[in-house]
């Protein structure tokens, strides 16, 4: 009998499993193949603006991602250096193999038991999860975390070629997907894409703009394991009009435009064919050439995600200066996959319908390793709560990007793959990548999910904050810079908090409230806000509906 079972050993699954284990749960991590642990299926980079914030927050709770990144970083950049500490984003280029092995080591060290099997079917009893049927037999559990990424009924597109499967060469969990659909959890289909992989030996690096790694040493994790890997440079190439002409002439062979793909892709991470079509006036787009590893000839051309046919991919890349003789090792492709409406989940990422069932990662409509990993943390911590009767661990918008994401997902749902951006955080000035320990340290300690080394680091940090020399530290300086604005935000927050205190009973029938239209009742019912504050942030809910809801909630409380 497992306390917690996690399906999927990607970024969400690894964090979920290890977080639950750190809280003392007996955890099984179910995956098709042991080699898949911590696989970076797309861009081998971690962090960035907003995303880097998530990783630093995850790190405070002893999450694995930051430490695995530090052990495998071959290129580091602190983005937005000139724009102020609140929006500086640490970003890493990882050696794909080193990252995978670092993650495998960390997962094993956390005491998680690896179960190599195909997950076939959830087993529920009385509205609660009791186990998972796999091709290796039935596994009993108290909590179950589904972290299968795009693997629910995914289809791959390269030109007019269509295949079943998540990542290339892997199976797609069709049976599990069917069951999730039957439980009424699935919402629709989303699309994501990946660029082709280039052979670095066929790139003329000398003709490209070099992008070196940062000189100063900084780490993603507050716990420096002391591992240093040689640093590589990236390079920037640029598309030109010829490139765009080649792409344009192949629009009719694109599954995106031919209508084969129905899922919606992220607006902020469009495919190159999308960019060429939508921004026809731009004469050039950047391509960031990112080496995938120290002893790896593969280069990831960031910025040219595509599902055009393989020959077109090769032709347009070869029109780019410096890439005239480039060889494609693998073609780029688009993946269309099914996702779950995250509004069906509570703020602990537990399903509202089935007790003990948690969902985390890309399956909830997000994109990106960091978003997935942070959800894994939330689901893992709370799956352990559910299994062991521990206190739930919640995150709010004011205190963390994790809170912003969970709130956005479970309240607003998604209509395109959700990616973290600092613009999503209204308390951005307080939520910096450099003050994650200050913000969340005490929470991490009280959640009892951290090791002794981490606990000491947090306690030390908080003690340093109390010292008179604090103001001369970098973090202290940033505190001072934003202090007047934070004071104003604090006052705004006080207003919000009055609404936070008005809780909405989970069984409140919105349709039965006088003054709430059918449309409003539907919106509210889809999001099931837990407080009046949440209700006020649901898109399209009118002030009149809120007033009526406020009355109803107060009456119930009275």
């Amino acid at each position: 009998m497992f306390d917690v079972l996690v399906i999927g050993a990607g970024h969400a699954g690894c964090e979920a499993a290890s977080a639950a284990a750190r809280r003392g749960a007996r955890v099984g991590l179910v995956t098709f193949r042991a080699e898949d642990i911590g696989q970076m299926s797309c861009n081998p980079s971690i962090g960035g603006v907003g995303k880097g914030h998530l990783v630093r927050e995850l790190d405070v709770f002893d999450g694995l991602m930051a430490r695995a990144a530090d052990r495998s970083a071959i290129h580091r950049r602190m983005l937005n250096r000139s724009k102020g500490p609140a929006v500086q984003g640490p970003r890493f280029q990882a050696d794909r193999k080193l990252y995978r092995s670092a993650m495998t080591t960390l997962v094993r060290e956390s005491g998680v038991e690896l179960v190599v099997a195909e997950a076939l079917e959830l087993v529920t009893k009385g509205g609660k999860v009791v186990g998972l049927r796999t091709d290796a037999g039935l596994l009993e559990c108290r909590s179950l975390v589904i972290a299968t990424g795009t693997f629910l009924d995914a289809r791959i597109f390269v030109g007019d070629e269509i295949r079943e499967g998540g990542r290339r060469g892997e199976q797609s969990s069709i049976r599990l997907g069917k069951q999730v659909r039957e439980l009424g959890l699935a919402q629709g289909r989303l699309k994501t894409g990946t660029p082709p992989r280039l052979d670095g030996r066929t790139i003329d690096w000398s003709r490209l703009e070099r992008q070196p790694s940062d000189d100063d040493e900084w780490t993603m994790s507050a716990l420096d394991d002391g591992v240093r890997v040689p640093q590589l440079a990236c390079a920037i190439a640029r598309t030109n009009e010829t490139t765009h002409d080649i792409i344009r002439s192949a629009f009719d062979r694109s599954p995106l435009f031919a209508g084969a793909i129905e899922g919606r892709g992220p607006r902020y991470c469009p495919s190159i064919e999308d960019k060429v079509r939508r921004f026809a006036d731009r004469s050039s787009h950047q391509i960031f050439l990112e080496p995938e590893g120290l002893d790896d000839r593969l280069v990831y051309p960031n910025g040219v995600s595509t599902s055009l046919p393989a020959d077109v991919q090769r032709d347009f890349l070869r029109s780019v200066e410096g890439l005239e003789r480039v060889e494609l090792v693998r073609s780029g492709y688009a993946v269309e996959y099914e996702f779950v409406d995250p509004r069906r989940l509570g703020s602990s990422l537990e399903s509202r319908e089935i007790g003990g069932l948690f969902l985390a990662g890309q399956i909830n409509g997000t994109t990106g390793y960091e978003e997935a990993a942070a959800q894994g943390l939330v689901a893992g911590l709370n799956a352990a709560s559910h299994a062991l009767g521990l206190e739930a661990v919640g995150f709010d918008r004011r205190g963390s990007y994790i809170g912003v994401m969970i709130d956005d997902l479970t309240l607003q749902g998604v209509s395109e793959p959700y990616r973290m951006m600092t613009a999503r955080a209204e308390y951005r000035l307080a939520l910096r990548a450099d003050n994650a320990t200050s913000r969340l340290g005490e929470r991490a300690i009280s959640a009892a999910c951290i090791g002794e080394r981490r606990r000491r680091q947090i306690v030390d940090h908080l003690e340093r904050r109390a010292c008179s020399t604090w103001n001369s530290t970098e973090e202290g300086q940033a505190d001072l810079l934003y202090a007047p604005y934070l004071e104003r935000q604090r006052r705004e927050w006080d207003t919000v908090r009055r609404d936070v205190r008005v809780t909405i009973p989970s069984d409140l029938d919105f349709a039965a409230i006088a003054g709430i239209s059918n449309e409003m009742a539907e919106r509210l019912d889809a999001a099931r806000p837990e407080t009046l504050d949440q209700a006020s942030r649901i898109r399209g809910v009118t002030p009149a509906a809120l007033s009526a809801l406020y009355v109803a909630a107060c009456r119930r409380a009275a």
Partner: protein
Amino acid sequence: MSTDTIYALSSGRPPAAVSIIRVSGARAHDAGRILAGSLPEARHAALRTLRSEDGGVLDDALILRFDGPASSTGEDSVEFQCHGGRAVVDAVLGALKRIDGLRLAQPGEFTRRAFENGRIDLTEAEGLADLIEAETESQRKTALAMAEGGLKHQVERWQQQILQLSARVEAAIDYAEEDDVGFDQELVADCQSLAHELETWLERPRIEPLRDGVRVVVAGPPNAGKSSLINAIAGEERAIVTDVPGTTRDHIEVPFSLEGVPVLLTDTAGLRESEELVERIGVARARSLVEGADVVVWLGEPKDAPDHPRVIKVHPRADLLGRETAPDGVQPVSSVTGQGLAVLLERMLHLAASVLPGEDAIALNRRQAGHMAEAFDALFAASASQDFVLAAENIRSARTAFDRLTGRAGMDDVLDALFGRFCLGK
């Protein structure tokens, strides 16, 4: 839900035959006992002598007691029906103010408590608000309803512009890896021009003078003939006129219609340095009334006239021997003979009309102007900032100010806006 005990005058503005003062909240009964000695049974009335804390008699009043939740607010409450003189009402309100845990009610707060305690529902509350507003609706006419639609469209346009500004600065922050650009100087200019536009709107005539009357304040040294002039204009003995200087210790308001323009003519205490406390308070109030006036009618020496954009200098008592000639630019008036009154009224009308919104112009009310002023401040700060993130923060602030303006904000703000429509204590 609310912990404070609140009080307010809930009948019309004194003087009146009877004034009703209500107290609601946990300490309402204590307050009643402090003033009246003892309270009648619940839902009964009794005559009591109200006394201040030093034992001085305030008034003989009818007092009613209600026990929550069976009261209109759902809380313990007490109602005093006093004599309706200003001094009496002020004295009773003053005595209540000095009781610990009591504070003056916010506009609409009694209704709000009734609503929060489930005594009335929102539709009733809104109905009540509409009913109260309807009384002044005739004054505003249909032009204003149109004007409100106009404001809505205008605000939507501003919101779109601010959203665009936000998008530009946010893109620069969240897309750090794309071609890195320096600070967007155009953004600064665009923030500035929008701030400037809001500023010109803020300088426009507001809706309050049209709704509540243009505030014409008559001011001058003691015994300059202010009250006589008001009586002459209003045509009846509204103000107390004696020849003892300093008679008008507080102010008196006379609403009247000047060729269809609603005017609130205000008499003030004479502006002079005084030893006497009550008079000194009157003088201080007069000064603040002059500051808040739409138009000032000044009866003193022309050189002493207050610094105000719209002041009419008057040479009073032009009928008296030796006062026949007025200095240049000063209007000679006699309240006795009526000399110069017509000209004075014409000038008053002219100035009053200038503070009223035009017939088809969009006029802001105080609440709207307040939120717009916040947006203006924020945009101005954004245009002065050389820091991306702080500029973004200020633009966001401007955005939320507009959200509050249109009602998409915290629940409490929405309810405040709704219940703020009520007159105090209704």
